[in-house]
């Protein structure tokens, strides 16, 4: 097929008259606004790529797979692997804790809550999304981490400390704390989007299910969640997007290890994500190589985010549509 922009394309776009009517002007403005999204992404990608050239030239693939990180002038080594893994692990914890809670909230609000509770609780959940992340970070640093430390980490460490992922002395400033605060931060997003998705499931589906004798649990599990699964999956991806890119709250709670120590080998160990690493170091970075290293980590973060989003789209369109049957 020929996708070149031809006269006929333009004519179709401009309702067959290439004239400056109001409607066509509006179309031009709308198209320009839509194009800006692509342009911004391209400019960001270009800037990050050119900015990270020095560090890629110097370290090559070691920048992606190395674990050392030393910004001292004359001893510079940069490897981003621990922070990529740290980002994946903290986001994974956030999803593991946050998604079931969010689905519980959404199901309760749509399927079970009495009318008087539905609206106020729905508003409160959405209000949580409006709390700036630095507030979650401060609350996490001064209050929440001591709860996590005293009621979760120390008991687990005392009983299950022999399991490698629970090893180490917990301080409340570690991968687990960061993942937990991320879980709290993604709940409003995932819960409110899932709520709308479940809300949109036609009542006829529920009625049909009840009429063949299904219990509430069976209706929700087999029909409602199944019908809305691509929408819920989208909600989870939105939450994951927030978790991957979150900076302030993570940096305040994760303990900010660098170098090999930042490899996420135990939940109760300080770690580092890509976003927190950049937030920590970029402002005071001096020297071409050090600045390039942080920009390079930014590039990896951008690529990872794109990968997650593209992967999610592929999953929604390929896997879910075919298997779901009821979808769309």
């Amino acid at each position, binding site marked *: 097929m020929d996708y070149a922009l031809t006269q006929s394309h333009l004519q179709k776009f401009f309702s067959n008259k290439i004239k400056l009517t109001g*409607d066509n002007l509006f179309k031009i403005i709308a198209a320009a606004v839509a194009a800006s999204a692509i342009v911004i992404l391209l400019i960001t990608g270009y800037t990050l790529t050119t900015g990270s050239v020095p560090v890629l030239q110097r370290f090559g693939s070691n920048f992606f797979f190395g674990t050392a990180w030393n910004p*001292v002038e004359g001893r510079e080594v940069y490897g981003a692997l621990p922070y990529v893994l740290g980002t994946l692990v903290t986001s994974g914890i956030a999803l593991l804790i946050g998604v079931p809670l969010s689905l519980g909230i959404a199901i309760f609000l749509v399927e079970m809550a009495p009318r008087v509770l539905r609206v106020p609780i729905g508003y409160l959940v959405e209000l949580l999304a409006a709390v700036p992340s630095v507030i979650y970070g401060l609350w996490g640093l001064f209050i929440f981490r001591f709860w996590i430390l005293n009621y979760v980490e120390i008991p687990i460490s005392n009983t299950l400390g022999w399991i490698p992922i629970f090893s180490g002395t917990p301080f409340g*400033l570690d991968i687990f704390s960061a993942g937990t605060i991320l879980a709290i931060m993604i709940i409003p997003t995932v819960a409110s989007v899932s709520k709308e998705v479940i809300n949109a499931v036609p009542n006829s589906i529920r009625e049909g299910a009840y009429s063949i004798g299904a219990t509430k649990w069976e209706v929700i599990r087999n029909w409602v969640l199944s019908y809305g699964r691509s929408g819920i999956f989208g909600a989870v991806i939105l939450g994951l997007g927030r978790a991957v890119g979150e900076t302030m709250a993570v940096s305040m709670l994760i303990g900010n290890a660098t*170098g090999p120590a930042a490899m996420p080998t135990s939940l109760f160990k*300080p770690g580092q994500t890509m976003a927190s690493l950049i937030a920590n170091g970029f402002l*005071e970075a001096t020297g071409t190589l050090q600045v390039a290293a942080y920009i390079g980590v930014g590039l990896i973060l951008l690529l990872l985010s794109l990968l997650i989003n593209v992967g999610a789209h592929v999953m929604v369109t390929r896997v879910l549509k075919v298997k779901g049957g009821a979808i769309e």
Partner: protein
Amino acid sequence: MNTKYAVVIAIVAIAIIIGSVAAYVYLSQPSASAPSITLNGAGATFPYPLLNSIITKYSTNVKPNVKINYQSIGSGGGISDLKTKTVDFAASDAPLSASDAAGAPNAVHIPQTIGAVTLAYNLPGVSSGLHLTGKVIADIFQGSITMWNDPAIQSLNSNVTLPSKAIVTVHRSDGSGTTFIFTGYLSASSSSWNSSVGQGKSVAWPNAPGGTIGSNGNTGVASTVNGTQCSIGYVELAYALQNGMTVAAIQNPAGNWIQPSLQSTELAVQSGASTGLPSGDASWVNVSLLNAPDANAYPIVSFTYLLVYKELNVVSGMNQNKATALVQFLWYVVHDGQDLAPAQAYAQLPSNVVQIDEATIRSITYNGQQLPTT
């Protein structure tokens, strides 16, 4: 109908664009009635509270027609803005390195205020008066001294019962001048630190077996130390004083145990600077106020600097009036501005440093001409 709406929207959009451009052009014109001058600076966060109060006082009481913007974007950002000549002055916790100096030729150093680093600790049963030496601190942060009751610490604190607990070290996770000063002190105190870690605004922190935590800013380190038993971290003097933190006394080269204070910091600068500072246009890379010779000087002390070009006509947007205003502002910072320092828990520049600053500020020119300092 739709077309009409579209036209209206388009007209409104165009009107907004033209209006904001016009407003921008109008606002950026200097108004004819009161000629005002704007100076822009950027750089270190550490001197920001003091610099900000100096700027506020200067713009309200001394030169109401001079507006000064200082953006505390970090030393690195300040130096890169200085190199691109987009700011009139920069501030940095560390002197220009050789490579930075090459990118900003003929920039001069003006010591503006003094930073000191304290060691804050949280040790149940030891509420004050812990004694430490530079070597022991380096060994703790390097992970070779791991227990609080290690003989190396116990021998410095014979009258204190130290617990048999592992030491948790806390460091700044953000790049910072405080880390630069602290790691400089550790490098000077321990050859093994110097060879394996070195000095920098952020370094590859070794792991202490008891735990190593990075926290954001003085506030983060202070909060982590307060919330973690058996921990030790370093915070800036002004922050430690204002928040009444428990800090260690450090042994200076004279062998005395010195509590960090404004007074012991000023003594360090007086005696450290008396050994001969370079002129403003020379390299300051080797300037050190660490381990100053005075018997009562606190050992972990350093300058922070204002950086300006010696010949101001290289800066974009510079003119005679702006250059004069800048020089007069710098003069104010190192003289009357210093009176504001104690209230903000900063040490004042001693007179021998002020004299060097005076000579440096007098040497600043615009198109080869000297500028009046008052």
